[in-house]
Structure formats: C-alpha cells, structure tokens
C-alpha cells in the first residue's frame, strides 16, 4: 500500500494518463455490473401499483423505499418465497454437512494413509472430473426415479434425496483441494499423536479436521453457492410447489401469464441476497480457492 502511494505521488504525466485510462475502464465495468442490480433493487422497492418500466430507466432507488413488495414476495400465499428460501437453506445445510464430512474423510485417506491401490484410486478421483455430465443425466434420473427418490411420497419430499445424498459420496474437486491442503499440515503432528496412542480416526477428527478449517470453509461456501443456485436438479426431481427451491419457484413464476414485475424483482433479490452475503464474508478465501484452480491448470 505505501508503495502504491509513493507511485502515485511520483506520477509522470504519461503514467497519470495511463492510470486515468485504467480507472475509466474499471469504473465503466463496475457500472455494467452494479447498474442492473440497482435497477432490480429499484423495482423491488416500488409499491405494487407503481410501474417498473419507466422512461428514463431508474438505476437506483430514489423515490420509493417500500419494503412491502419484498414482504409480499416472501409471504404471498400462492408463492411464499420465505418458504422456498427455507427449502433451499435446508438442502444447502444438508449438502454442506455431507460435503465437509465425506470429502475430508476421503481426502485424509489420500493425504495420510497408505494402502494398496492408492495411486490408481486417486487417478480415478481425477478421472471422474472428466466424466460427461449429459450422459449421466438420464440414467441417474432413472435410477432415482425407480427407487422412489422423486417428487413427494406420502408428504415426504423424496425428491430431496437425490439432491442431498450424493453430497455424502464426495466430489472430486473438493477431494483434490482438501488433499492438497492436508499435505501441507506437518506430519510430525500426526506422529506425535500416534505416540500418544491416538488411532487414525482420532487423528483425523482431532488434528487434521481442525487444522483444515480454512480449506473446509472453501468447500462449505462452494457447496452452499452450488446448491442455493442449482436449478436443474430441483427441476428434475421436485413436483410439489410447496417443496420448491427459490430458483425453481422463480422460474415457474416468470413463465406464468400476468407476471407482477415488482414481485418478480423482489423474488430475484431473495435469490441473490444469501449468496451475496456469503460472498461478502468469504470473498478472500473464495478467490484463493478459485485462483488456485487456475494456477494448477
């Protein structure tokens, strides 16, 4: 930072021009990102009788700060987004528990234990990253459909099973990430624990897990974002609107005739807010996780 400041003070006219150009481009880009969100917020904060489409377009809320539309979107009887948000959060929570537990168990075995077939199995982990998703789509659906993991069965949302159970079987990307992270934990810690009489399970739970928290947070955040934003999975497996997730409910709402745009924009905001909050709290870790993928590639 101090270095940056010194640079600015010593700017030659040419360098100042360069800096001005960079900032101009970046401000234009930032506007391209922020203005649509501002427009959406403006629409969501208007009362129902005020038109959403105005001339000229309103990019930021100035006149109306009416939270009623937002409340309507959350509680309207036929499309209660609060309910959908709770559904989405339930799915996300189960998936996070599943992803954190399973991927750390699997990664621990690959990072620390010796067993025959280890290299072959780890190559298999990496190979499953390359499996063609479209091909698996239909047989996976048929599999779940035929064992009754679909829709609602006697009041129970059986369609939630295919949206949660696979998380407990690990994910190649997370296994790789956690294994890499666990290999940076000094082995002396394991060995000291062994001398003290700890078994593998206890070493995993008491030493490796607590020390892997930064990487586990990345896994949890990615899992949350993936599940909260998932549309296709719920579209395939859910049939009863009361168990819909936020994206599925939103997509169903906009396809209907006579859409109320204020409500739709408020609902869109409901879909966007939780990821934004999570992003706000975790952005540095998240960026690190994403960047590390790119460097490896």
């Amino acid at each position, binding site marked *: 930072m101090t270095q940056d400041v010194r640079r600015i003070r010593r700017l030659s006219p040419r360098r100042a021009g360069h800096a001005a150009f960079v900032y101009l481009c970046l401000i234009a880009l930032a506007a391209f990102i922020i203005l649509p969100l501002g427009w959406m917020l403006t629409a969501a904060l208007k009362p129902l009788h005020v038109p959403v489409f105005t001339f000229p377009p309103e990019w930021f809320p100035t006149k109306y700060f009416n939270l009623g539309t937002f409340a309507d979107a959350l509680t309207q009887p036929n499309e209660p987004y609060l309910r959908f948000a709770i559904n989405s959060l339930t799915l996300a929570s189960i998936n996070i528990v599943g992803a954190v537990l399973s991927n750390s168990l699997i990664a621990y075995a690959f990072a620390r234990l010796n067993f025959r077939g280890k290299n072959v199995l780890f190559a298999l982990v990496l190979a499953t990253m390359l499996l063609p998703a*479209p091909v698996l789509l239909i047989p996976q659906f048929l599999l779940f459909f035929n064992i009754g993991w679909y829709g609602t069965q006697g009041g129970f949302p059986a369609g939630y099973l295919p949206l949660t159970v696979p998380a407990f079987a690990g994910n190649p990307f997370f296994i790789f990430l956690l294994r890499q992270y666990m290999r940076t934990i000094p082995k002396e810690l394991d060995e000291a624990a062994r001398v003290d009489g700890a078994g593998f399970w206890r070493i995993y739970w008491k030493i490796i897990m607590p020390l892997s928290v930064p990487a586990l947070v990345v896994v949890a955040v990615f899992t949350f974002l993936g599940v909260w934003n998932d549309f296709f999975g719920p579209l395939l497996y859910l049939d009863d609107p009361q168990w819909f997730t936020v994206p599925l409910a939103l997509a169903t709402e906009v396809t209907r005739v006579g859409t109320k745009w204020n409500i739709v924009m408020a609902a869109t905001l409901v879909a966007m807010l939780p990821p934004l909050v999570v992003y706000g709290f975790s952005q540095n870790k998240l960026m690190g996780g994403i960047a590390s993928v790119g460097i490896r*590639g």
Partner: protein
Amino acid sequence: MVMQHDALGAPGEAADPAAAGPIEPGHQPAWRPVGRLGRSEERAAYLFLAPWIIGIVAFLLIPLVWAVWLSFTDEQLLRPGVFIGLENYARAFTRDPSFYKALQVTLTWIFIAVPVFLISGLLVALLLNQRLPGMGAFRTILYVPAVLSGVAIAVLWFTLLNSDLGAVNQLLRSIGISDPPNWFQDPKWALPAVAIMGLWGVGTNAIIYLAGLQNIPPELYEAAGMDGAGPFAKFRHITLPLLSPTMFFLLIGELTAALVIIGPVIVISGAGGAAGPADSLLFYMLLLYRRGFVQGELGYAAALAWILTVIGLVLVWLTFRLEKRFVFYQV
C-alpha cells in the same frame, strides 16, 4: 460411527512402522502392508474411502454402463424399453428435424462464446493487474455475478433486454439509436443477447487470469524493460507465453461449458415453451432435455447425450493438439 471409532481408534495401532518411514505419497507406487499394523492402516483407509467408493459405483459406474444400454433401447418414462439397435442414432441423424438446428445453434454459440469470454476475461485481468490503489475493490465488484443464481441472472437480463420496455434499449434510444436490437425477440440477436448475459460474469475468468498474471516473475518485465522492450513487446513475449497454460485451462473450461449450455430459455419460456424466435436458442442440451424429460423418450435422449459426448471429445482432442503448438510450460 461407534464401530468405526473402535476399529480405527484402537490404541494398539498407534505406532505404525510402515508410516514412520520417509513415505511421500505419490512417489511410492509399491506400498505393501507390513504386519498387523500395516494391514490395520489399510483397513482404516478403505473405511475412510467407503463413502466415495459406494458413491462412485452407485452414482457413476452403474449409470455410465446403463447409459450405453439405454441409448440402444426405446425406454420411456414408466415404460421399460426394448433393444432397438442403432435406431435412436439413426433417428437423430436422419429423422429429427431439430437435431441439426440444435447442433448449429450450439456450434455457433461455441464460436461466439469461447473467444469472447476468453479475450474479455484477459482484458479485464490486465486492467486489474495494474499496481494502482483500489484494485481489490474492483476485483470484488467484478466477481459478484459469479456467485449469483443463474435463474435470477436470466430473469434480470430478460427484463433489462426487453425490446420495448427494457432499460438497455431505452438507454440505447436515449443516446440516439432509434432502432435498437430486439434481442431475445430477434433470431439474429438472441445469441448475442445470451453472450451479453455471459459477459456480465466476466469477473470469473478475470480472477483466474489475474492469478496467472501475478504468478509471472516481475524480474522478467524489468529485464525486458532494460533491453528496451515496449509494453506490446512485453505482452507478446512475456505475458502471453507465460499465461498460455492458464489460457489453455480456461479454453477447455469454456469449450465444455459452451457445449452443455442449456440456455436461459428454459428459465424464461418454461421447459416446453419456444426456444427463442425461429428456434434460435435451441441449444443441444435443451433439445435433449425436451426429448428426454418433456416427451419422456429417455432412450432417445441417452443416444443424444452420447452424440454430444463424442463431439465434445473430438473438440477437446483438437484443443489438446493446439496445446502442443501454442502452450508454453515453464520447467
């Protein structure tokens, strides 16, 4: 869980001679269990791996084999199929009028999306890589769309790009473009509209490029500067070669993503609705979804999936051939 704890936590296994040696995983292919302790370590490892092994068999291997079988049957939802040989494949290539349209839309999309997203991401990363104050804040803002729901983004941009009332066209009219594009209502502009939506997420690639840029040793630029290289020569002879592995990684990612895009249409006009004007947004995966899940012809859809996979493999193979010529790896 209790049983696992007993099996793994027995104090007898504490000191393990096999693991105490200088073992670096990945460099010791021929590990063999030594004595009781080694065998118990192996047993423990397979217990830890159990969820993954069960998952890979149940959710990947069985479905994969089943997918081959399905593509040779006339399986429908609620009606098991019978073997019909290559009939599904023949139908796709000769009797499904939407098949070639879907291929054309998807390949056109690849030719638009891959270069646009690769180049825009690089340009934004170059901006963010300047050593000026405030870059962190811009980085944070630009990455925001990457965390948002695709459905929410589609709904938002369909509204913004509405041809009559949308904010974008009003903006264009106010700066003197009296006849702005009809975006999603015009077959010529529908794909570019999807690209604009995609460009909103330019931050995703930019962050990955940025990590690559920041990995380039600054000494190289200093040395080149002393030799009299200008900014373009530096970019051409230092940045591009050293960034080419990152670029290749993103190229493969964008290519495979473009191939399986199902498009915003499934959100906006519903699963069975129009795929844009004149089917201009009939992406291959949308066709597959409709044949399989709307019409319930799962056997035929399985064949469509295999055709797409073969196309994907050919494209990835071609890209890897390019890699040998254009990608520079630091040793």
